[in-house]
């Protein structure tokens, strides 16, 4: 992917930079606002919670990198480590133009909560290199990545901070990170990164991990909402790794995908789309544009308000905004991407009685399978694809059960319940460990 295009602008599957979703100047503060409410409802000790209001550590490094033409470019690298109460830090490595520290802060905090909801023994982190990878050669990107890793070496590693693949960091990039850490450590250290190629200690089930997680929570949610486990009409926004894989899985489960979209537009057919041929077309041509069939071609926005039982937005943040929230027909929304539903839209949906499974729970399959990769690397023993699936299902179901329990107990939305579960788990760990001095 590197060197071909700046995929962050084109592909729906990339988590959107948080700053798109909120208007506030300080994304970390905005992100924390909902956790503040959760802490309030839990009656949490303010002293313990105060620790969570700030990242544990922020590191900024300056990285001289030799360009192909011999010129030295000095790039900026960042890593924010939010909280280590539950275990080593874990979070994405991004290569992105305009990368900002406060955005990383928000992502790092977000990762802490997400791992806690899923009961993955990690704390949150986020980092990256500020560079538009599309404007550099692959060799230049490699040198930048290796220099970045070397600069952070004393703060990362399998028990300190684990990098996961993210915006513009494909498995090739993760392999360089693994190699650099290993060369310095003087032994193979593949547990230092996740999202590696299978040949270098990657895990089965990585590609469709988020989709499998979404499928697992959908099953649980259908039960609660009172919809059947087959034949439900579903609209999916996004047709890449997340949306596309999910659409295929749900068709296998006997559901009807009535709407599917990518960045160029949406397809709708209330009798159900032929997902297999559409994804085949997309794999061949790079987009859904030009695909033939008996469906209607509409805009993304229009698709969101067309009749359906379940809506699963897997695209950029904020696609379900206020106007759409008022008009949409779904009884259940699974947030398939981070921040799909704007906060004002979320309130409208709550008032309208539309069930929303929040991103922090719904998209957790990715974090869980990354964690599985780390476990397999540490054990030096790779699991079969079936084992990965079985255990992923267990993690998703357990998280759902805990969140749902809190929802009933406190009579709150699933979103608030998920936030409360996260805050409860992280502060419990911090409380037990105490303040080191």
């Amino acid at each position, binding site marked *: 992917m590197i060197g071909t295009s700046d995929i962050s602008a084109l592909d729906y599957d990339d988590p959107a930079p948080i700053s798109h979703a909120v208007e506030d100047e300080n994304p970390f503060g905005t992100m924390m606002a909902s956790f503040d409410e959760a802490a309030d409802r839990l009656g949490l000790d303010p002293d313990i919670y105060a620790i969570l209001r700030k990242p544990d550590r922020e590191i900024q490094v300056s990285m001289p990198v030799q360009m192909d033409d011999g010129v030295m470019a000095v790039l900026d690298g960042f890593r924010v480590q939010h909280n*280590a109460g539950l275990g080593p830090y874990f979070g994405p490595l991004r290569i992105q133009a305009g990368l900002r520290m406060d955005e990383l802060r928000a992502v790092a905090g977000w990762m802490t909560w997400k791992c806690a909801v899923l009961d993955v023994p990690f704390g949150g982190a986020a980092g990256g290199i500020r560079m538009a990878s599309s404007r550099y050669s692959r060799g230049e990107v490699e040198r930048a990545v290796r220099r970045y890793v070397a600069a952070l070496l004393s703060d990362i590693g399998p028990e300190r901070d684990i990098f996961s693949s993210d915006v513009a960091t494909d498995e090739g990039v993760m392999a360089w990170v693994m190699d650099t850490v290993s060369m310095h450590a003087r032994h193979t250290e593949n547990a230092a990164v996740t999202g590696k190629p299978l040949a270098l200690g990657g895990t089965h089930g990585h590609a469709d991990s988020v989709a499998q997680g979404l499928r697992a929570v959908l099953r649980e949610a259908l039960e609660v909402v009172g919809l059947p486990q087959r034949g439900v009409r579903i609209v999916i926004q996004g047709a890449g790794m997340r949306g596309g894989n999910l659409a295929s899985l749900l068709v296998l489960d006997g559901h009807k995908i009535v709407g599917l979209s990518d960045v160029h537009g949406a397809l709708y057919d209330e009798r159900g789309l032929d997902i297999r041929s559409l994804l085949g077309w997309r794999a061949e041509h790079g987009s859904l544009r030009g695909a033939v069939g008996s469906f209607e071609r509409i805009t993304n926005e229009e698709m969101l308000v067309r009749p359906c039982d379940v809506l699963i937005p897997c695209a950029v943040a904020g696609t379900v905004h206020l106007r759409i929230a008022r008009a949409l027909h779904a009884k259940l929304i699974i947030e398939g991407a981070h921040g799909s539903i704007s906060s004002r839209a979320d309130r409208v949906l709550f008032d309208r009685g539309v069930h929303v499974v929040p991103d922090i729970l719904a998209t957790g399959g990715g974090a869980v399978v990354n964690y599985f990769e780390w476990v397999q690397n540490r054990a030096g023993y790779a699991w079969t694809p079936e084992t990965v699936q079985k255990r992923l299902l267990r993690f998703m179901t357990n998280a759902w059960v805990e969140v749902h329990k809190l929802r009933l107990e406190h009579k709150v939305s699933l979103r608030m319940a998920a936030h409360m579960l996260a805050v409860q788990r992280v502060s419990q760990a911090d409380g037990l460990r105490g303040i080191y001095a």
Partner: protein
Amino acid sequence: MSTAPAAADKKAPANEFNPFESMAQLFNTAADHLGLDHGLREVLRRPDREMTVAIPIVMDDGRIEVFTGYRVQHNFSRGPCKGGIRYAPDVNLDEVRALAAWMTWKCAVVDVPFGGGKGGVICDPRKLSKNELERITRRYTAAILDILGPDRDVPAPDMNTNEQTMAWIMDTYSMHVRKTTTAVVTGKPIALGGSRGRTEATGRGVLFTTREACKNLGIAPKDARVVVQGSGNVGGIGAMLLQREGYTIISISDQYGAIMNEKGLDMPAVLAHVKATGKLQGYPGAEAIEGGKKQLEIPCEVLVPAATENQITTENAARINAKLIVEGANGPCTAAGSKMLDDRGIMVVPDILANAGGVTVSYFEWVQDRMGYFWTEERVNTSLEQVMVKSFEDVSAVAQKYKVSMRIAAYILSIDRVATVYRMRGVFA
């Protein structure tokens, strides 16, 4: 072991009530059976390493007080040392040494890859605030840090230490080594890398060994009346699990007294009563009877002393009316008392086998922490069952081969395991 003089005469009359002397005697008997040479006996008698540290603490009132802490690593040929840390005013190096050796034998009997260790701090926890206890724990951890670690020495809770103490040790160690290291201690809260099923582990181990022993003796669960001394994590949970498997619990005791019902106690209800009132006394479904040693004389098939040491001695061994004794506590039968039971044909499942469920699940916790993946409770219980059943069979086989009691067989087995590894590794120089 190390409490015994190097040339201890095993026939010399020992103090019957010193459990460590009993253990030293057993060591000698087992070593004789194995024909262990003098050099190896010397090696196994002495701890590999002992550390004494001063622990200066700023008390809550601003004074500095200096406490003394110990960590003894008895033998690390089979793997990192494993053993509890206790806080008590009467902690002393001799006791810590003996307990460390005891852990070596216990780990070897159940074949977990650990050597024995033990530690302690001389202090009176009742007179310390939580903050002072935290500072003592952290300073003690920092002081012994160089000999601690998942691959060196892995402490666990013991007298007056608990999950919270273990969380502080884990945090202090992790901060010093600059990485999360949950596997440095076991007995942690589940939120920080603890294992499911640990609280019930020792009681569950008692269940498995009782079941295997009953099979050997041809006692069916439905025909087995069980008397349990102690109603805590070992006795109480053990009794509940035994009842669930069809055994009839006719009596159970606590420090205040005992209760009895010939038809069988309803253990979940009994434990709920204990939880609510703090004692057995007043439980409506049973008659209150005299506790203490008197309870042990009740006619039954299985007797489980799961309270404290020196309960069955030369004084009362002749009056014990059971076919099987399963030692849930450490050292409930004195060596001499145990000999009388042997002569009467009463089978005794010795402490280092019967109550090893706890250290086994501690081992599972360490395994889970090392891989960073946590087992379901069913998985923990199944693995525990495998270990306990296998260990029971191993000890039985040795007992038959050497024609000795289960107790001596357990020592023969464990000493042989440690000695074998020691010979294979050789003396490093």
